[in-house]
Structure formats: C-alpha cells, structure tokens
C-alpha cells in the first residue's frame, strides 16, 4: 500500500483514478440503496413479474399465425389490446414506484458530484485522445482554462464512469429494467394510434 501511493503520484493524470474510484464506490452505494428501497420490495417483484409475463404473452400472441376467419382476428386484436394496456399500466406503475425511491439515489449522486466538483474544479484530470465536437466540449472542457480541447475535466470523466459502471453493475446484479417495460411507454405513454 505504501509503495502504491508514490507509484500513482508519479502519473501526471493520477486524479483520473481518484474520479474513477469515487464513481465506482458511488455506484455500489447507489445500487445498495436501490436494492433496499426498490428491488427487495414485494411491490417491485410483483410488478416486474407481471411485466415479464405480459410481454412474453404479447410476443407469443403477435407471432402466432393469423387466423383466416374475420371474427377470430377481431377477438385476437382485442386480446392483444387488453394485454398491451395491462403491460403499459404495469410499466407506468413500475416507473412511478422507481421514481419515488430514485429521489434518494439522485440526492446521493448530487452530493458526490458536488464533492468532486469542489475537489477538482479547474483541474485537468485526463487527456482526451481526440478533439471532441462542440456539444461534448462544453462538458469535457467545463471549468478549465485555456483552449486545448483535449484537456478533460472531472465532469466528463465522471459522466463516462457513471454511465458505464452503473449500467453494467445493474446488468450484472440483475437490476436492469425488464425489456417489456422499455417498449411500453413507461411513465409518460404516447397515445395509442389504434384509438385515434
């Protein structure tokens, strides 16, 4: 441990490792909070289960060979509509449920970002191996002096860490949202084109 600190200090951009380390710890803490407030609850488990069942049922119904009789087609369409609206409802409930508990996670992320900002404001934490486009540069060069667009600020590195680490951690732990929910509108569903 004593030999590791001088080793890291010799790197010009050793601060990048600090940012990554803090991001990793934050991701673990956020997932732990999410597990306590969301994933271990019976409401979440039952909503997830009903979404999975409904989306699988919908897939089966849509891929079954269509019947030649008109009456059977109509009743099949009605059944599909019923399953779709139940799926949309469950997805909406799931999103709302996660939204309420997600406020705590958002607070943690906000506090950590504030802490990192105070630690690394104005500091170049890494070097980009490319010149970013204008939109990306606004974040990657945030708070930095000079015109060198390859200088990387904490904000951009933290954003990359957050997205990559949290997404993969959620996937690894099995906390990713069910695929059926993603296609069913979520909290703000679009109007059903069939009824308009």
């Amino acid at each position, binding site marked *: 441990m004593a030999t590791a600190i001088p080793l890291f200090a010799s790197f010009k*951009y*050793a601060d*990048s490792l600090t940012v990554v380390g803090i991001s990793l710890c934050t991701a673990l803490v956020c997932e732990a909070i999410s597990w306590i407030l969301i994933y271990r609850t019976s409401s979440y488990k039952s909503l997830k289960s009903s979404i999975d069942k409904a989306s699988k049922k919908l897939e089966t119904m849509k891929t079954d060979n269509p019947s030649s009789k008109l009456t059977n087609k109509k009743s099949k369409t009605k059944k599909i509509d019923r399953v779709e609206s139940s799926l949309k409802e469950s997805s909406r409930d799931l999103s709302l449920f996660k939204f309420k508990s997600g406020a705590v996670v958002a607070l943690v992320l906000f506090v950590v970002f504030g802490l990192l900002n105070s630690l690394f404001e104005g500091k170049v934490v890494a070097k980009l191996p*490319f010149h970013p486009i204008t939109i990306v540069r606004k974040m990657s060069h945030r708070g930095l002096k000079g015109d060198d667009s390859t200088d990387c600020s904490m904000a951009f590195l933290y954003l990359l860490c957050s997205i*990559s680490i949290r997404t993969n951690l959620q996937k690894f732990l099995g906390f990713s949202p069910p*695929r059926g929910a993603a296609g069913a509108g979520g909290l703000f569903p679009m109007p059903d084109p069939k009824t308009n």
Partner: protein
Amino acid sequence: MKESKSAKLNQLQQQENHQNAHLSPSKLAKLFDPDASWDKDQLGDVLHWIRQVVGLISGLLWGSIPLVGGIWIILFLAISSGIVYGYYAMILKVDEEDFGGHAALLQEGLFASLTLFLLAWILVYSLAHF
C-alpha cells in the same frame, strides 16, 4: 427413519452438484450452437456483454498503442457492431425478425459499451503516455 432421510438428502445434493457441474459447459456450448433456442432476454444479455468486452479491450488497446483521433471512435463502433452482427447472424444463425430486427439486436449494450470504451481509452492514454 432419520438415517434414510439424511441419505435421501445426500443423494439429492449429489444430484444437484452433478447438475451444476454440467451447467457451465452446456451454457458455453450454447453460446456457439446454431441449433440452440434463444429467449429474447438471454440473447440480449449475451450481446450486451459481448459489446462490453469488445469496448473494454478496444479501449485498452487504442490507449496503449496509442491511437489518436475521432476516427477511431467510428472504427470502434463499426468493429463492435460487426462482431455482434457476425455473432448472431453467422455463428448463432438466429432470425433477427424473431428478436425485433437488426436494430434491436445491434443496439443492445451499445451506449454502455461506447462509454466504457471511451473511459478505458482516455484512462490508458492519459496514464501511459503522459
């Protein structure tokens, strides 16, 4: 009575261990078996992790050489998508219509792999060459 119960329990446990020992090789075999049946979620997860591994290796490689320039991001996306397409179309030979089409399969894990690639590339480049 107690002895027969514990013997039964031991037997069940042995059967489970036997099954578990066979799970890993059969799962690995399934990854390269064109005749295996795939669930949408299972295939999506496999494609996601393939993208993440490709992203990580590419980032480490691009950063070590180092490869510099925005063109290498485009090349990474092309290589990564090519590997994923080659895997599900040529090795697994799945019908993409059963899984929502090419777009649905190709977008699995795309954004996360891009951010992981950028993170690895930037870190290795910054730490190894300055």
